[in-house]
């Protein structure tokens, strides 16, 4: 036994040495550091990165290090994950139509619940933000590419194996998927023997490594690769939020990685990190998890807030009101978000003084969020609003964010939380934010920049259907959940025929309403997919260099400058011999009506 292990260890060591040797042979790493000088490479110069000639077909996508291609890869991956996570939850919603557990088994329901949460947060949320960041941050700040294009590619390519591992319990026949819920609370997560849980933890670890690499890349890019005319004072709001978010990732995700490794060791090697008695106990896991987990919710919400701050002015015909305060509130949220984690642990019996201080900080963090909302609304107040699809989704964001935020403030009050914790109220609260706000901002961003990354325009009637179905579906589903919470319906159950609190008929009715809302949402998303795919394939090329009429209000920005250059460049191809941004675009035709609503 011992001899075997020794042999294995030696073998592994040899393999590692071999890999290292191989790497030094096939790649001369030094050739990839031309940007180390820090100064932005002058326009039109050869940057040494893959813009010159790209191989065609699949090979191009497998080997690309171009930030725009990687952005597209992230986006496609994230939208696939959104579809998968969405279909998982549809099964759950159908299960909940009746109080009894009759569609799927309770175990399968738990597995879906776990996978839905992890998929949406780690395979949809973080990657879709990275998609926008990769595509647009370099364009917005006048950089030729991300600072580390190859690390960028690696970070993306860690995601597909991560996803396969996370879904492994469903994909590999014979092993049961994890049923820990996304919070993976010990001791349950240590004791559940499913191999699927180990795979999921490994996959989660990979996605964390991916996010961390991406974050380092964004930070370095924004610090060192800005164009000559971009400084901290005129850095756009989206890049500000990406920078802050990357900082949060840097402090939060490595900690999650370590905590997960300890959990894996507890599960497989008999270490006792989280054991009761010998180890830190379940509370240790909860502290570590939520020290990551709460910042994670701001990691997910800050860049969408940046998108909203970016888009609203462009459809209000005016600059963002109080730009500085929006930046400051972003930074304030970034700092404060590390001081509120124990509001997820009010009911665990931690020291009441500790609880009170976390309650205070949690109430305080509502202030910078309110400041942002205030600035968005003030921007709109005197604005000439155009209700095109990106703006509709932005307004939906504000409305849903207010409801999600107010319900969150209630949860931050200890006496209220003690009643509502672990009920559907919490589910309603955070879905108003993650679906009603974060996903809405993603849709707003996709529609707003559709002409840039596809060169086409979406179909605006379909986009409006998408908006209204999403808005109604979200509010029906999650409003019903808030009410269910008031009726003390516990969350995370496959059936509720055994629930003895609250009126069962009303609860059943509300569950059915939530399912109806989910179906409405689903129809909306089918329309969205159809719109994106068919417009991308069939719509005529956008010839307008300023599809949103931004010049009229003086809000024409670099990424559309890039778009205009691409159109006016003779070949219109991928060779970026023209400027990569910049404001000097006199050579554009007069604005034509785009999707802007008549």
């Amino acid at each position, binding site marked *: 036994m011992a001899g075997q292990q020794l042999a294995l260890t030696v073998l592994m060591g040899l393999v590692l040495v071999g890999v290292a040797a191989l790497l030094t042979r096939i790649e001369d790493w030094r050739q990839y550091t031309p940007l180390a000088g820090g100064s932005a490479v002058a326009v039109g110069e050869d940057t040494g990165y893959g813009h010159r000639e790209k191989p065609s077909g699949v090979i191009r996508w497998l080997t690309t290090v171009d930030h725009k291609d990687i952005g597209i890869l992230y986006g496609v991956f994230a939208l696939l994950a959104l579809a998968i996570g969405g279909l998982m939850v549809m099964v759950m919603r159908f299960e909940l139509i009746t109080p009894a557990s009759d569609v799927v088994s309770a175990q399968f329901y738990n597995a879906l619940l776990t996978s839905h949460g992890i998929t949406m947060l780690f395979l949809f949320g973080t990657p879709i933000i990275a998609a926008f960041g990769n595509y647009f941050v370099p364009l917005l700040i006048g950089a030729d590419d991300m600072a580390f294009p190859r690390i960028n590619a690696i970070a993306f390519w860690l995601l597909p194996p991560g996803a396969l591992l996370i879904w492994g319990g469903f994909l590999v026949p014979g092993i049961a998927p994890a049923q820990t819920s996304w919070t993976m609370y010990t001791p349950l997560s240590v004791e559940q023997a499913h191999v699927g849980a180990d795979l999921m933890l490994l996959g989660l670890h990979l996605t964390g490594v991916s996010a961390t690499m991406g974050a380092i890349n964004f930070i370095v890019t924004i610090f060192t690769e800005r164009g000559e005319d971009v400084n901290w004072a005129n850095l756009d709001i989206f890049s500000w939020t990406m920078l802050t978010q990357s900082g949060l990732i840097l402090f939060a995700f490595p900690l999650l990685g370590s905590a997960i490794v300890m959990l894996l060791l507890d599960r497989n090697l008999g270490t006792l990190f989280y054991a009761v008695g010998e180890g830190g106990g379940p509370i240790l896991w909860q502290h570590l998890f939520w020290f990551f987990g709460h910042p994670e919710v701001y990691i997910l919400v800050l860049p969408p807030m940046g998108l909203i701050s970016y888009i609203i002015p462009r459809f209000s015909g005016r600059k963002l009101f109080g730009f500085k305060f929006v930046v400051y509130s972003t930074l304030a949220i970034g700092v404060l978000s590390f001081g509120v984690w124990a509001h997820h642990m009010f009911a665990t019996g931690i020291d009441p003084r500790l609880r009170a201080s976390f309650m205070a900080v949690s109430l305080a963090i509502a202030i910078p969020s309110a400041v942002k909302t*205030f600035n968005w609304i003030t921007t709109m107040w*005197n604005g000439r609003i155009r209700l095109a699809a990106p703006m509709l989704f932005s307004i939906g964001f504000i409305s849903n964010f207010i409801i999600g935020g107010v319900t969150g403030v209630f949860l931050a009050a200890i006496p209220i939380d003690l009643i509502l914790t672990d009920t559907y109220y919490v589910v309603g609260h955070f879905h108003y934010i993650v679906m009603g706000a974060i996903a809405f901002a993603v849709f707003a961003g996709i529609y707003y920049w559709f002409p840039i990354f596809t060169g086409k325009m979406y179909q605006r009637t379909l986009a409006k259907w998408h908006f209204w179905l999403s808005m109604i579906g979200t509010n029906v589903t999650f409003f019903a959940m808030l009410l269910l919470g*008031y009726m003390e319906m516990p969350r995370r159950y496959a059936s509720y025929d055994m629930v003895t609190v609250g009126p069962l008929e009303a609860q059943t009715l509300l569950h059915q309403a939530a399912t109806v809302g989910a179906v409405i949402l689903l129809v909306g998303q089918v329309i969205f997919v159809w719109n994106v795919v068919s417009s991308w394939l069939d719509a005529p090329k956008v010839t307008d260099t300023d599809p949103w009429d931004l010049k009229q209000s003086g809000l024409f920005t670099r990424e559309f400058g890039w778009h205009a250059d691409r159109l006016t460049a003779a070949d219109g191809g991928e060779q970026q011999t023209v400027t990569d941004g910049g404001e000097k675009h006199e050579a554009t035709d007069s604005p034509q009506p785009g999707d802007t609503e008549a």
Partner: protein
Amino acid sequence: MSVRTVNRGRRVVLVVYLVVIAIAGLMGAILGATRPDIVDPVLFGVVQLPASPLGMAAYGMITVGIAIGVLLGAVAYVAARFDTHEPGGE
């Protein structure tokens, strides 16, 4: 295309404001109808309202309406005083 009434912005904001209040009222009404046993609406801690659908709806709408209304008033004030951007706006 951009020749729009300035008031469009205000109208949109006010509609969102009313929708949020309506949602609060709806929530109050449903809670008053289904859980009269657990609700006890005391407006601002002084005015006792009945624990009925109507009482709860009024409670929700007045509380939320005033809370967000104060913010909205601040928006209007700040926009009139400090929002100097774009001379053509007003």
